């Protein structure tokens, strides 16, 4: 239960930050970059989309699905084993994608984006919780 609560909380934090980024992109506004000044460079780079889909939309969709699955697992909506597999695969893929994006910021773009790093740490924390949890 605790691990699911943590997963849900992290997914909700992820939703709030990606909603912020989506809104800023739609209004063509520059997001506030609390630490560092590379947010604009990273978020407008050619790597900000995968197959024409903006990364913020992909992130938002992932967080919404993860939070829904965490809720299903708490309420015990069947088939439970299916939800467990889906959440493990989704968080696993998201962790690898986050690793790739962090590498892009570090080695290719050579600037750091606060929001992208925060999202990456959120996902990695989810992966650690799933790996350490005995109930998921």
């Amino acid at each position, binding site marked *: 239960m605790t691990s699911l*609560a943590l997963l*849900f*909380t992290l997914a*909700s*934090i992820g*939703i*709030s930050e990606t*909603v*912020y980024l989506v*809104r800023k992109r739609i209004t063509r506004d520059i997001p506030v970059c609390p630490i560092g000044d590379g947010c604009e460079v990273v978020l407008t780079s050619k790597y900000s989309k995968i197959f024409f889909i903006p990364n913020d939309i992909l992130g938002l969709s992932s967080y919404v699905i993860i*939070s829904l699955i965490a*809720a299903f697992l*708490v*309420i*015990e909506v069947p088939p439970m084993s299916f939800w467990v597999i889906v959440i493990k695969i989704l968080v696993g893929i998201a962790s690898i994608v986050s690793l790739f994006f962090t590498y892009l910021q570090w080695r290719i773009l050579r600037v750091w984006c606060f929001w992208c790093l925060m999202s990456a740490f959120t996902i990695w924390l989810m992966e650690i919780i799933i790996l350490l949890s005995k109930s998921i």
Partner: protein
Amino acid sequence: MSKTSFHILRVGLAITFLWIGILIFKQPEAWAGYLQPWAAKLLPVPIEEAMKGTAILDLGIGVLLLFDYLVWLGALVATFHLVIVLAVSGITDITVRDIGILAATIALMTDSLPENFIDRIKSR
């Protein structure tokens, strides 16, 4: 309220309401136990159905706050909801914390009311 404090409060309250909604859906009968007998008698529907309705309301409030959409409305509904919760369950060791959440929803609501709404109140 500063922008950062506002958003921290908004997301924190959103997670609280969403999580409570999920927990009520998990065990509506357990949450029904918090209701005072006099309040339970007033319900026009079975108590479990009423608790599921409460869960949906909590989830709705949580979604509005989390997606930063009509935050004032979400906070306004949350404020009324918490006043009713405190009235029908009484102030116990557990519900005493709702006073803090109520204060937070009021703070969020006053800070996010639409400007034209505030102007209309001022002009009267």
